[in-house]
């Protein structure tokens, strides 16, 4: 029982960065922008957050720095994709390649350094038997992720601003004709997404690992992108997907711990294999995707060009 609680706790822990990043990406995709640079934003945020937390001994400052780094990366993307109307796929790829290079460059002197484990858990609640260990003995960012999910559900479906955001994603021409500043809304959505990816990246380097190795994010940015498709762009399903992927990641360590004779390299493939399987299952029916996908996703919009 004690082990099972630890397993749940570990799954939540490893699902959290996916949750936060995918929620951010969901927002910019709902606004019609496809940013494949998530991996790059997370990498730069991870090393920035790590470096700041390492130098100042203040982990929370690492999160702030990570969020800012993510927003700066998102601004770079926005300038190209929104102002210069470049191809969003290519620009996102460029952001990922640039982020990988920049993080490796900044991080070279931090390779192998680690951070002390920070405070954990909610007082009192974490003393409840079983549930306390499974649910309430986590870093604050985990609960932030849950709040974020609730907040986004409210924003998208219950607030006027959320309605405008969805309108921009479904039909930028109509939103523009009604007088909504499409580019500005998309930029704000990208900024929010950058901040989320940044917090997720900082979580990886400051709390989850907590050390720096090159390529620390290890494809989680891409998995988060896959999660938005898996969730058919709905926040509640993102939460479900993140927990699912979190447990797949933990399963590999669990298999190793109970001594199943599969080489560790093969077990490490599990999250990537799971991503492919999930994509296949969800995309099998093209109509299902078409119905749910924001209609203008990935299509550039330039006011006054039509």
């Amino acid at each position, binding site marked *: 029982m004690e082990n099972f609680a630890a397993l749940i706790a570990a799954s939540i822990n490893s699902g959290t960065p996916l949750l936060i990043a995918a929620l951010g990406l969901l927002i910019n995709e709902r606004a019609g922008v496809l940013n494949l640079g998530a991996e790059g934003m997370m990498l730069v945020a991870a090393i920035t957050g790590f470096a700041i937390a390492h130098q100042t001994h203040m982990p929370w400052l690492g999160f702030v720095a990570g969020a800012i780094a993510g927003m700066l990366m998102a601004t770079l993307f926005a300038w190209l994709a929104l102002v210069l109307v470049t191809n969003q796929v290519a620009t996102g790829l460029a952001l990922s390649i640039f982020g990988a290079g920049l993080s490796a460059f900044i991080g070279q002197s931090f390779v192998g350094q680690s951070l002390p484990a920070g405070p954990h858990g909610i007082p009192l609640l974490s003393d409840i038997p079983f549930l306390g260990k499974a649910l309430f003995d986590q870093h604050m960012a985990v609960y932030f992720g849950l709040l974020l999910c609730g907040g986004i559900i409210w924003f998208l479906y219950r607030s006027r601003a959320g309605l405008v955001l969805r309108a921009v994603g479904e039909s930028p021409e109509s939103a523009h004709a009604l007088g909504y500043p499409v580019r500005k809304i998309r930029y704000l959505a990208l900024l929010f997404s950058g901040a989320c990816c940044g917090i997720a990246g900082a979580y990886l380097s400051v709390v989850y690992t907590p050390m720096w190795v090159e390529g620390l994010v290890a494809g989680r940015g891409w998995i988060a992108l896959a999660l938005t498709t898996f969730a058919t762009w709905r926040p509640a399903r993102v939460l479900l997907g993140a927990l699912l992927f979190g447990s797949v990641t933990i399963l590999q360590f669990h298999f190793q711990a109970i001594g199943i004779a599969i080489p560790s390299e093969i077990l490490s493939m599990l999250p990537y*294999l799971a991503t492919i399987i999930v994509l296949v299952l969800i995309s099998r029916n093209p109509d299902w995707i078409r119905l749910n996908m924001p209609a203008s996703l990935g299509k550039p919009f330039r006011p006054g060009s039509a």
Partner: protein
Amino acid sequence: MLKLELRAASSRSMAYLSPVLALLLTIFFGALLFMALGKNPLTGLQVFLIEPIRSKAAIAELLLKTTPLVLCALGLSVCYRANVWNIGAEGQLIAGGLAAGSTILFFDTGTPGLSGGMVLLLASCAGVVGGALWASITALLRDRFNANEILVSLMLTYIAQLLLMYAVNGPLKDPNGMNFPQSKVFSSDYLLPHLFSGSRLHIGFIVMLVASGLMAVFVYRSFAGYRLTVGGLAPLAARYAGFSSRRALWTSLLISGGFAGMAGAFEVAGPIGQVLPSISPGYGFAAIIVAFIGRLNPIGTIFGGLVLSLFYLGGEMAQSRLGLPSAITGLFQGMLLFLLLACDTLINYRLRWQK
């Protein structure tokens, strides 16, 4: 204020000028970067861009690294022409390298068997098949299940890297290697022949040049290549003309995987000479930039390959001469791609001064 104004027709000359402009801007921002790092910008640029090509031996190294970059980019160009976003060339390269390395290790037992040339030919074929098979997974899942090829090809890259790690820790590990995760060093018969003595430049370079020529014919002079390009530029027109988008998907991914696999085979049987846990410093990803710089033109990719190869050597030089992290290569790569995308805006728009 500067404003973008849509051109009546996209500018052909700008399409060729844009990579040059992007490269010049990259050099300019590179100088700023060296300055920000407290180095003399001119010394920095000299070390990064000139030092690597000062001698004949250095130029041979440049061409050596150009080979895998161009091979991968040749296939990627075909994919991007067909609007198939394969970004998993790195994984296809690893799969090819692994297949080729296993083939060589199978024959390289110390007992007389097939001739070295024969084994190398087999290994190269194994590389091509391995890379193409790896890419065919992406094609199959896209074709059959509509799964996004960007994410699938990238996930397969992580899986290929783990498979390589498994291989060098398991079946391919050198039994006399003091438990290091690597295969034994191939005997010299089973290494690609060098073009000149005293340099590592191997016969794969010639193969790459021939391949570029053949691909130029395929893209610009064959009906199959024409069908691919039309499918990418105007999917509806292609459908009306009866060009199958499924065939375009499979053709482009198989070509791309094959070339990337060949690049992997040449790396393993060439400069590396054994199977290591890492057989590529990201050539498959850099090749994406090579393809764009080369304007998706097979001959153009050679120029793109030279530039990106220079960046790799420049990074090593910057580390040894200036004490900067060699990861500076990745920074230059990213800057170049960003600036290229920005400059490409000028193909369809012109800048106008507006009060």
